[in-house]
């Protein structure tokens, strides 16, 4: 019995030592990076891709049919030639597009078995902006690499102006350029183009859903002298497709260009923040109909302090 107890005590002590060792180890700044190391000299699978004319027309249809939103999908590569593009179920926004893991799995499952391993090109559009990958893109490519069991893959970003950035994602640190050649050998008739257009239109209607901002109730933080409610910030932010989630591109306030809605909001008595002016002394909202307040930039209460000849100033 005593011997058994000793063994248990020894085992407990060993567990404690292991636990302490693990805790100590976690203090060291280790960043798992074996994928980077093992791919330092890996040759890229592609340095050039030829895009078939019909495939390019299809891609342009997707990008233009979605209007001012981004769109994403996969491309099929056969012997160094991109022969087709397709989309998957996704939620589209002005500067962001997301397909859930279920949508990606659905895409894989509906791919014919003999085409598995060919739909490897990861593409998305940047509407009319530059085609440089964003921070969101880089993070996602790293996740996608994991989901592809570490197998390198080509990615492409394209915009309405037909600018293209194409790279081979090997690891976080290695993504060499792929040159793109657009094949225009084929004579595609207008009726063929219309057929491609209609096919894309059907898919966009079926699979792409516009992002809808959650409805929240706005509680005004102050009442201005006119008793007018300030047009809520969140409404403006969400109207421009949630630029909050995105960084680096555009000005979320600058995108507010729906004149009809602005006019309607003003008619209802809403006042936009950027139309308000605040007292330089106490921060209260100024009554701009008062010429003194407008001229001196201070509220009625603070006017006495700043007017010339005032003893308080």
């Amino acid at each position: 019995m005593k011997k058994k107890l000793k063994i248990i005590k020894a085992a407990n002590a060993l567990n404690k030592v292991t636990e302490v060792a693990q805790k100590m180890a976690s203090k060291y700044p280790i960043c798992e990076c074996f994928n980077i190391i093992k791919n330092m000299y890996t040759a890229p699978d592609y340095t050039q891709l030829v895009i078939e004319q019909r495939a390019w027309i299809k891609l342009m249809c997707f990008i233009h049919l979605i209007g001012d939103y981004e769109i994403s999908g996969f491309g099929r590569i056969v012997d160094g030639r991109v022969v087709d593009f397709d989309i998957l179920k996704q939620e589209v926004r002005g500067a962001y597009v997301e397909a859930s893991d279920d949508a990606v799995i659905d895409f894989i499952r509906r791919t014919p078995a003999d085409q598995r391993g060919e739909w490897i090109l990861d593409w998305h559009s940047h509407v009319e902006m530059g085609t440089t990958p964003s921070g969101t893109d880089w993070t996602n490519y790293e996740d996608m690499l994991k989901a592809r069991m570490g197998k390198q893959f080509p990615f492409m970003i394209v915009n309405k102006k037909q600018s293209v950035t194409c790279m081979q994602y090997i690891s976080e640190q290695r993504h060499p350029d792929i040159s793109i050649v657009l094949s225009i050998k084929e004579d595609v008739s207008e009726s063929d183009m219309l057929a491609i257009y209609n096919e894309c239109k059907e898919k966009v209607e079926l699979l792409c859903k516009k992002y809808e901002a959650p409805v929240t109730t706005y509680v005004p933080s102050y009442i201005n002298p006119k008793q007018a409610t300030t047009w809520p910030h969140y409404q403006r932010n969400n109207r421009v497709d949630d630029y909050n989630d995105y960084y680096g591109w555009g000005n979320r306030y600058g995108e507010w260009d729906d004149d009809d809605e602005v006019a309607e909001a003003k008619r209802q008595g809403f006042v936009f923040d950027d139309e308000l002016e605040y007292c330089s002394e106490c921060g209260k909202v100024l009554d701009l109909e008062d010429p003194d307040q407008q001229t001196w930039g201070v509220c009625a209460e603070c006017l006495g302090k700043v007017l010339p000849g005032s003893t308080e100033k």
Partner: protein
Amino acid sequence: MALDFEEMNGREESAKANVTIVTVAGTQDQEVEVGTSIGDFKSRYGLEGTKIVDEEGDALNNSDIITNDMQLFIATPKKNG
């Protein structure tokens, strides 16, 4: 008579299951010990944070066990900005 050293040592050879992994990159086969949990399978192949579903499309949890040959579909969300 051949001696079974595994049996003499009190060990039995663990059964294997063929798992076909299907991703966007294609298909690959892996031999996995029967009884391996999906959680262990994920950590062995660096698939933490990915979603795994079986042939029927049912999502598998980390506690689910691989008991026979199966096809697994693996993906992460596709987010672009």
